[in-house]
Protein backbone atom coordinates (compact mmCIF):
# COMPACT_ATOMS: atom_id res chain seq x y z
CA UNK A 1 0.00 0.00 0.00
CA UNK A 2 2.79 2.41 0.95
CA UNK A 3 4.37 1.84 -2.39
CA UNK A 4 1.17 2.61 -4.21
CA UNK A 5 0.44 5.84 -2.37
CA UNK A 6 3.00 8.08 -4.15
CA UNK A 7 1.81 6.66 -7.45
CA UNK A 8 -1.73 7.52 -6.49
CA UNK A 9 -0.77 11.11 -5.71
CA UNK A 10 1.18 11.35 -8.90
CA UNK A 11 -1.89 10.21 -10.83
CA UNK A 12 -4.03 12.83 -9.09
CA UNK A 13 -1.57 15.65 -9.69
CA UNK A 14 -1.27 14.62 -13.30
CA UNK A 15 -5.03 14.65 -13.72
CA UNK A 16 -5.09 18.06 -12.09
CA UNK A 17 -2.45 19.32 -14.47
CA UNK A 18 -4.48 18.09 -17.41
CA UNK A 19 -7.54 19.89 -16.12
CA UNK A 20 -5.69 23.20 -16.12
CA UNK A 21 -4.41 22.74 -19.63
CA UNK A 22 -8.01 22.65 -20.76
CA UNK A 23 -8.72 26.17 -19.61
CA UNK A 24 -7.91 29.30 -21.54
CA UNK A 25 -8.38 32.91 -20.52
CA UNK A 26 -8.85 36.23 -22.28
CA UNK A 27 -8.64 39.25 -19.96
CA UNK A 28 -8.59 41.80 -22.71
CA UNK A 29 -11.41 40.57 -24.89
CA UNK A 30 -12.99 43.15 -27.15
CA UNK A 31 -16.70 43.84 -27.54
CA UNK A 32 -18.11 46.70 -29.60
CA UNK A 33 -21.69 47.65 -30.22
CA UNK A 34 -23.25 49.86 -32.86
CA UNK A 35 -26.53 51.67 -33.09
CA UNK A 36 -27.25 53.20 -36.49
CA UNK A 37 -30.16 55.60 -37.02
CA UNK A 38 -30.85 58.52 -39.30
CA UNK A 39 -30.34 60.88 -36.39
CA UNK A 40 -27.00 59.65 -35.08
CA UNK A 41 -24.63 56.71 -34.97
CA UNK A 42 -23.53 55.47 -31.60
CA UNK A 43 -20.57 53.22 -31.14
CA UNK A 44 -18.93 51.94 -27.98
CA UNK A 45 -16.06 49.62 -27.26
CA UNK A 46 -15.00 47.58 -24.25
CA UNK A 47 -11.39 46.31 -24.32
CA UNK A 48 -11.34 44.60 -20.94
CA UNK A 49 -13.85 41.80 -21.36
CA UNK A 50 -13.05 38.64 -19.41
CA UNK A 51 -13.64 35.22 -20.86
CA UNK A 52 -12.74 31.68 -19.89
CA UNK A 53 -12.82 28.90 -22.46
CA UNK A 54 -12.83 25.25 -21.39
CA UNK A 55 -11.92 23.16 -24.40
CA UNK A 56 -12.69 19.84 -22.74
CA UNK A 57 -16.19 20.78 -21.61
CA UNK A 58 -16.48 22.99 -24.72
CA UNK A 59 -17.86 25.73 -22.52
CA UNK A 60 -17.35 29.45 -22.62
CA UNK A 61 -18.04 32.09 -19.98
CA UNK A 62 -17.88 35.85 -20.56
CA UNK A 63 -18.18 38.75 -18.15
CA UNK A 64 -17.83 42.48 -18.70
CA UNK A 65 -18.21 45.76 -16.87
CA UNK A 66 -20.80 48.03 -18.47
CA UNK A 67 -18.92 51.11 -17.29
CA UNK A 68 -15.85 49.97 -19.20
CA UNK A 69 -17.56 50.74 -22.53
CA UNK A 70 -15.92 53.80 -24.05
CA UNK A 71 -18.08 56.19 -26.12
CA UNK A 72 -17.20 59.14 -28.30
CA UNK A 73 -19.17 61.53 -26.13
CA UNK A 74 -19.59 61.75 -22.37
CA UNK A 75 -23.30 62.28 -22.76
CA UNK A 76 -23.71 58.93 -24.51
CA UNK A 77 -21.77 57.24 -21.71
CA UNK A 78 -23.97 58.89 -19.10
CA UNK A 79 -27.25 57.95 -20.78
CA UNK A 80 -26.07 54.39 -21.34
CA UNK A 81 -24.94 53.78 -17.76
CA UNK A 82 -27.38 55.89 -15.79
CA UNK A 83 -30.64 55.67 -17.74
CA UNK A 84 -30.59 52.57 -19.94
CA UNK A 85 -28.38 49.91 -18.42
CA UNK A 86 -28.55 51.24 -14.84
CA UNK A 87 -24.99 50.19 -14.14
CA UNK A 88 -25.23 50.93 -10.42
CA UNK A 89 -27.76 48.11 -10.12
CA UNK A 90 -26.51 45.90 -12.97
CA UNK A 91 -22.78 46.61 -13.31
CA UNK A 92 -22.02 43.56 -15.46
CA UNK A 93 -23.25 41.70 -18.49
CA UNK A 94 -22.61 37.96 -18.59
CA UNK A 95 -22.78 35.08 -21.01
CA UNK A 96 -22.44 31.34 -20.49
CA UNK A 97 -22.68 28.83 -23.27
CA UNK A 98 -21.55 25.70 -25.01
CA UNK A 99 -19.78 25.54 -28.36
CA UNK A 100 -21.63 22.97 -30.45
CA UNK A 101 -19.46 20.40 -32.31
CA UNK A 102 -16.25 22.24 -31.44
CA UNK A 103 -13.25 20.46 -32.95
CA UNK A 104 -10.46 21.23 -30.49
CA UNK A 105 -7.66 19.78 -32.57
CA UNK A 106 -8.14 21.19 -36.04
CA UNK A 107 -5.79 23.98 -37.12
CA UNK A 108 -8.26 25.12 -39.78
CA UNK A 109 -10.59 28.02 -38.94
CA UNK A 110 -14.02 26.66 -38.03
CA UNK A 111 -17.41 28.34 -37.81
CA UNK A 112 -19.57 27.07 -34.94
CA UNK A 113 -22.65 27.98 -32.94
CA UNK A 114 -22.35 28.92 -29.27
CA UNK A 115 -25.64 28.17 -27.55
CA UNK A 116 -26.11 29.87 -24.23
CA UNK A 117 -27.64 32.48 -21.99
CA UNK A 118 -26.90 36.17 -22.04
CA UNK A 119 -27.69 38.47 -19.12
CA UNK A 120 -27.92 42.23 -19.60
CA UNK A 121 -29.73 44.71 -17.35
CA UNK A 122 -30.73 41.79 -15.11
CA UNK A 123 -32.64 40.05 -17.92
CA UNK A 124 -31.51 36.63 -19.13
CA UNK A 125 -32.19 35.44 -22.69
CA UNK A 126 -31.31 32.28 -24.56
CA UNK A 127 -29.25 32.97 -27.63
CA UNK A 128 -27.32 31.26 -30.44
CA UNK A 129 -24.20 33.10 -31.54
CA UNK A 130 -22.16 32.22 -34.61
CA UNK A 131 -18.42 32.36 -34.12
CA UNK A 132 -15.26 31.75 -36.11
CA UNK A 133 -12.65 29.87 -34.11
CA UNK A 134 -8.98 29.93 -34.99
CA UNK A 135 -6.39 27.81 -33.25
CA UNK A 136 -2.93 29.34 -33.42
CA UNK A 137 -0.80 26.67 -31.74
CA UNK A 138 -3.13 26.36 -28.80
CA UNK A 139 -3.93 30.05 -28.53
CA UNK A 140 -7.56 30.19 -29.50
CA UNK A 141 -9.14 33.23 -31.13
CA UNK A 142 -12.93 33.62 -31.26
CA UNK A 143 -14.56 36.32 -33.36
CA UNK A 144 -18.05 37.04 -34.59
CA UNK A 145 -21.02 39.33 -34.65
CA UNK A 146 -24.66 39.14 -33.72
CA UNK A 147 -27.66 41.36 -33.03
CA UNK A 148 -29.64 42.12 -29.90
CA UNK A 149 -33.05 43.74 -29.63
CA UNK A 150 -33.13 46.59 -27.12
CA UNK A 151 -36.73 45.77 -26.11
CA UNK A 152 -35.79 42.22 -25.05
CA UNK A 153 -33.82 43.54 -22.10
CA UNK A 154 -36.44 45.91 -20.69
CA UNK A 155 -34.31 48.93 -21.46
CA UNK A 156 -36.47 52.03 -21.29
CA UNK A 157 -35.70 54.76 -23.77
CA UNK A 158 -37.64 58.00 -23.38
CA UNK A 159 -39.86 58.78 -26.42
CA UNK A 160 -37.91 61.97 -27.15
CA UNK A 161 -34.73 59.92 -27.71
CA UNK A 162 -36.28 56.87 -29.33
CA UNK A 163 -35.34 58.08 -32.82
CA UNK A 164 -31.67 58.36 -31.74
CA UNK A 165 -31.31 54.74 -30.73
CA UNK A 166 -31.72 51.76 -33.03
CA UNK A 167 -34.20 49.01 -32.14
CA UNK A 168 -31.56 46.42 -33.01
CA UNK A 169 -28.00 46.77 -31.79
CA UNK A 170 -25.14 45.14 -33.69
CA UNK A 171 -22.45 43.55 -31.57
CA UNK A 172 -18.94 42.45 -32.54
CA UNK A 173 -16.56 40.41 -30.43
CA UNK A 174 -12.94 39.34 -30.56
CA UNK A 175 -11.33 37.17 -27.87
CA UNK A 176 -7.71 36.11 -27.88
CA UNK A 177 -7.09 33.36 -25.36
CA UNK A 178 -3.96 32.18 -23.63
CA UNK A 179 -3.48 29.14 -21.37
CA UNK A 180 -4.96 29.73 -17.93
CA UNK A 181 -2.63 28.92 -15.07
CA UNK A 182 -4.32 29.14 -11.73
Amino acid at each position, binding site marked *: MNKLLPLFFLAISFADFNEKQNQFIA*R*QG*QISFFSYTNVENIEAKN*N*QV*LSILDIEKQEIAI*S*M*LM*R*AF*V*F*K*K*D*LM*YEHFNESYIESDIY*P*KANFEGKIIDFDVNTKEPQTKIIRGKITIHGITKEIDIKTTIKNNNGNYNLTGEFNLIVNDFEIKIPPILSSNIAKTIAIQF*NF*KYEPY*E*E
Partner: protein
Amino acid sequence: MLFLLILIGVVYFSNPFLNSSNKNLENELAELSLNAGELVNSYSNNEDKSNYLYTGKILEVTGTIKEITFLNDRITIILNSNFETFGVICDINPNQKRKIDQLKEHQKIKVKGICKGFLKDVILLNCTIDLPTNE
Protein backbone atom coordinates in the same frame (compact mmCIF):
# COMPACT_ATOMS: atom_id res chain seq x y z
CA MET B 1 -29.37 84.33 -31.15
CA LEU B 2 -27.64 82.72 -34.11
CA PHE B 3 -24.32 83.80 -32.67
CA LEU B 4 -25.19 82.10 -29.41
CA LEU B 5 -26.06 78.88 -31.20
CA ILE B 6 -22.79 78.93 -33.08
CA LEU B 7 -20.90 79.63 -29.88
CA ILE B 8 -22.58 76.69 -28.14
CA GLY B 9 -21.80 74.54 -31.14
CA VAL B 10 -18.15 75.51 -31.14
CA VAL B 11 -17.78 74.93 -27.40
CA TYR B 12 -19.59 71.60 -27.62
CA PHE B 13 -17.51 70.19 -30.44
CA SER B 14 -14.17 71.64 -29.45
CA ASN B 15 -14.21 71.19 -25.71
CA PRO B 16 -11.94 68.25 -24.92
CA PHE B 17 -13.69 67.69 -21.60
CA LEU B 18 -16.82 66.58 -23.41
CA ASN B 19 -14.82 63.94 -25.15
CA SER B 20 -14.73 61.04 -22.75
CA SER B 21 -12.23 58.83 -24.51
CA ASN B 22 -9.30 61.20 -24.24
CA LYS B 23 -9.95 63.11 -21.08
CA ASN B 24 -6.59 63.97 -19.62
CA LEU B 25 -6.28 62.96 -16.01
CA GLU B 26 -2.75 64.27 -15.66
CA ASN B 27 -3.88 67.50 -14.09
CA GLU B 28 -6.70 66.03 -12.06
CA LEU B 29 -6.37 65.07 -8.43
CA ALA B 30 -6.90 61.48 -7.40
CA GLU B 31 -9.70 60.99 -4.92
CA LEU B 32 -7.95 58.08 -3.23
CA SER B 33 -4.44 56.70 -3.16
CA LEU B 34 -3.70 53.06 -2.37
CA ASN B 35 -1.60 50.11 -3.50
CA ALA B 36 -2.61 47.43 -5.98
CA GLY B 37 -2.68 44.67 -3.36
CA GLU B 38 -5.08 46.58 -1.11
CA LEU B 39 -7.37 47.40 -4.00
CA VAL B 40 -7.63 43.80 -5.26
CA ASN B 41 -8.03 42.44 -1.70
CA SER B 42 -10.85 44.84 -1.06
CA TYR B 43 -12.74 43.83 -4.23
CA SER B 44 -12.25 40.11 -3.73
CA ASN B 45 -13.42 40.33 -0.10
CA ASN B 46 -16.47 42.50 -0.66
CA GLU B 47 -17.30 43.60 -4.17
CA ASP B 48 -20.42 45.60 -3.31
CA LYS B 49 -18.66 47.63 -0.66
CA SER B 50 -15.67 48.19 -2.93
CA ASN B 51 -17.90 49.31 -5.78
CA TYR B 52 -19.32 51.88 -3.41
CA LEU B 53 -15.84 52.97 -2.27
CA TYR B 54 -13.91 52.94 -5.52
CA THR B 55 -15.96 52.46 -8.70
CA GLY B 56 -16.27 55.61 -10.77
CA LYS B 57 -13.54 57.41 -8.83
CA ILE B 58 -10.10 58.59 -9.90
CA LEU B 59 -7.64 56.37 -8.06
CA GLU B 60 -3.90 56.59 -7.70
CA VAL B 61 -2.60 53.03 -7.50
CA THR B 62 0.95 51.98 -6.63
CA GLY B 63 2.17 48.57 -7.69
CA THR B 64 4.78 46.52 -9.48
CA ILE B 65 4.46 45.76 -13.18
CA LYS B 66 3.47 42.19 -13.98
CA GLU B 67 3.11 42.63 -17.71
CA ILE B 68 2.87 45.28 -20.43
CA THR B 69 0.75 44.36 -23.47
CA PHE B 70 -0.07 46.03 -26.77
CA LEU B 71 -3.07 43.88 -27.67
CA ASN B 72 -5.65 45.47 -30.01
CA ASP B 73 -3.42 48.56 -30.46
CA ARG B 74 -3.85 49.56 -26.86
CA ILE B 75 -1.26 50.00 -24.16
CA THR B 76 -2.13 47.94 -21.09
CA ILE B 77 -0.15 47.56 -17.89
CA ILE B 78 -1.09 44.80 -15.48
CA LEU B 79 -0.05 45.41 -11.87
CA ASN B 80 0.65 42.56 -9.45
CA SER B 81 -1.53 41.91 -6.44
CA ASN B 82 -1.09 39.42 -3.60
CA PHE B 83 -2.88 36.87 -5.78
CA GLU B 84 -1.07 34.79 -8.35
CA THR B 85 -3.70 35.07 -11.06
CA PHE B 86 -5.27 38.47 -10.82
CA GLY B 87 -4.22 42.06 -10.40
CA VAL B 88 -5.03 45.51 -11.72
CA ILE B 89 -5.54 46.01 -15.46
CA CYS B 90 -4.59 49.58 -16.40
CA ASP B 91 -5.65 50.81 -19.83
CA ILE B 92 -3.11 53.54 -20.56
CA ASN B 93 -4.03 56.81 -22.26
CA PRO B 94 -2.20 56.95 -25.63
CA ASN B 95 -0.66 60.31 -24.64
CA GLN B 96 1.53 58.41 -22.15
CA LYS B 97 3.21 56.43 -24.90
CA ARG B 98 6.69 57.91 -24.52
CA LYS B 99 6.82 56.82 -20.86
CA ILE B 100 6.30 53.18 -21.75
CA ASP B 101 9.85 52.69 -23.07
CA GLN B 102 11.18 53.54 -19.63
CA LEU B 103 9.20 50.76 -17.96
CA LYS B 104 10.13 47.16 -17.34
CA GLU B 105 8.63 44.19 -15.55
CA HIS B 106 8.73 44.19 -11.72
CA GLN B 107 9.30 47.94 -11.69
CA LYS B 108 7.33 49.88 -9.10
CA ILE B 109 5.10 52.57 -10.59
CA LYS B 110 2.15 54.76 -9.76
CA VAL B 111 -0.80 55.04 -12.14
CA LYS B 112 -3.80 57.33 -11.99
CA GLY B 113 -7.01 56.20 -13.65
CA ILE B 114 -10.77 55.86 -13.37
CA CYS B 115 -11.80 52.70 -11.56
CA LYS B 116 -14.49 50.78 -13.46
CA GLY B 117 -14.93 47.79 -11.15
CA PHE B 118 -13.86 44.18 -10.80
CA LEU B 119 -14.05 41.02 -12.90
CA LYS B 120 -11.13 38.77 -12.02
CA ASP B 121 -8.97 41.86 -12.06
CA VAL B 122 -9.70 45.43 -11.04
CA ILE B 123 -10.04 47.60 -14.15
CA LEU B 124 -8.70 51.15 -14.42
CA LEU B 125 -9.24 53.16 -17.61
CA ASN B 126 -7.64 56.25 -19.08
CA CYS B 127 -4.53 55.87 -16.94
CA THR B 128 -1.60 58.22 -16.68
CA ILE B 129 1.75 56.99 -15.42
CA ASP B 130 3.68 58.66 -12.65
CA LEU B 131 7.33 57.71 -12.95
CA PRO B 132 9.25 57.76 -9.69
CA THR B 133 11.98 60.38 -9.52
CA ASN B 134 15.47 59.03 -9.03
CA GLU B 135 16.29 58.66 -5.39
